[in-house]
């Protein structure tokens, strides 16, 4: 199949495509499933990160 006689290589080739499709499906299904809120702790963390980054 596809000119690849070794089943292990063929599995890797098709497996890559299957994983990519699975990832797309996951992204579509979970698009709005998780909560999306920024807490004060998150914001505080980002301010510190930005400070270090800007000084750098």
């Amino acid at each position, binding site marked *: 199949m*596809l*000119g*690849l*006689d*070794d089943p*292990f*290589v063929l599995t*890797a*080739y098709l*497996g*890559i495509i299957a*994983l*990519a499709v*699975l*990832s*797309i499906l*996951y*992204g*579509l299904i*979970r*698009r*709005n*499933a*998780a*909560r*999306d*809120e*920024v*807490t004060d*702790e*998150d*914001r*505080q*963390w*980002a*301010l*510190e*990160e*930005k400070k*270090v*980054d*800007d*000084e*750098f």
Partner: protein
Amino acid sequence: MPDHASVGWIDIIVILAYLSVTAYLGWLGYRGTRSAADFLVGGRSAHPVIMAVSYGATFISTAAIVGFGGVAGLFGMSLLWLTFLNIGVGILIAFIVLGEPTRRLGHHLGAHTFPELLGQRYQSRGIQIFAGVLIFLFMPLYAAAVMTGGSVFAATQFGIDFEVALLIFALITAAYVIPGGIKAVMYTDTFQGFVMVLAMIFLLVFTYSSLGGVTEAHQYLTDMEAMVPAPLAQIGHQGWTEMPAFGWGAPTYDLWWIVVTAIILGVGIGVLAQPQLAVRFMTVRSRRELDRAVPIGAIFIMLMTGTPFLVGSLSNAWFAQNGPILNGKVIQELDAEKNQALVELMQQTDSGAWTAIINPKTQAPATAALIVSERQEAEEASGTRFELVGGRSSAVTYVKGDADTIIPTFISTALPHWFGAIFFLALLAAAMSTMSSQFHTIGTAAGRDLYERIGTKGQPREPSLLVMRLAIVVGLLIAVTISYTVRQEYIVARFTAIFFGLCAAAFLPAYIGGLFSRRVTKAGALASMTVGLVVSLFWLLLVKAKEASAIGLVQLVTGGKTSLLADYPNWPSVDPIVVALPAALLTLILVSAFTRPPAAEHLDRCFPETR
């Protein structure tokens, strides 16, 4: 080889256009939102495409494209399993399983670097310093891999010496990372990511179409199995579309252990414990952003690794159909039906007679497997008449077995020159985005995790930007020195695999245990990290033949052997990760079982959701 190496006016226009767009986007970024932290501070969400592509651009570099693509040219499509793991582990498991817990833990503890995350989680200054030292010492090895990959490509594409290309590459890197270019300007990263994606799509389509289609290209390569060079066939290479021979206890299985344990497992699993990638999860706004980034990340990684691995392998078929004609004398028919023969290579002297080409390594006549397309009568220098054959060979023959030059040689020979310029820019972008995060990690490891933590009388010191910048300069100098001095077989991929394997063995059990288990203890984590590092280094210095013999200690210890286990076939080909990672994991479990668990208040701070 045809000489394609020069810089034309079209190249200059392409390069200038690319740099102008990058500069414009950089300027736009500097005026407003530029880094992931800016998005978070503003309470806004980075578009999932931006998040995924900038993560991917940090992950993918010249090491993957030139280094591992070249290894695929040498060893074949078994490397597709690495792409499989890169998506399955590097994207799916990393984003879905580790991403959110890392983000939450980092924010709860106020950690900003990977060593700080481990140190705070286990309430251990020692763990933070240990991790900082490991990163500071070994990250330059990975940076050297990226730099060598870029320099080999530039040298081939523009026809300059490797040393000159390395110097230019080092200067560009220094200009980029030392004065502050290391701030992650996400729009620029994303634009560069898109250029890489388009370049990879073009490369893949061009390669398949020039070989007559997907199935035809694969079939042609499958039919070349008899042409595998003898030194590779002797260690188990069965063809470029086949897995290496699997087994244990004979040298004919060495390649399987090299490809599967070092190339595929080392990098495929090691990605989970990459410090510069793990901290990326902390800059994400929420779980939802991670979920949305999964599809783009997967497709990006599929193109960025799958394409070079396929093209690297298929370059053997392309050269067998389109490469320059080589001449010589048949010494063995390999497959008469397919006109494949092992040929002693010859060149014509000024007098018109033919003489053997001498292999400088073996000082014996050079041989290669050719697909013979022409035969004629000719005369040797001694006056003897013989049948001179002409034909084409695999890419491995044309690059004289140097895997690192397979992708650059294929692109400079097979593709239009303007594409070479674009591809070079895409590679430069890939290298810069990876190296900026590498040197950022080196700088913060030295400044934040070492200098600040190793304070006077146990008191933390004030942060020092000077220390960070000095560490970056030192790291850069070490990386350039390594790139300059070490030029061996597929060194780009090997350096990368060593660093990824070390990170996996030293960090992965403690990192995953710290994210998911309340029972893992400080002593368990520290013991696990120590065992992972010590076993890996022991294996690299004394057992794994390629690395150990290059370093030289094993010859002193054993009186000239290349491995402590040189008399036991296959052991010297096994990667350290196979031994060191299970040992580190076992240590984590056993030591944690016999030591006192962390205080409940601390665990509540780490995991308030499960209080």
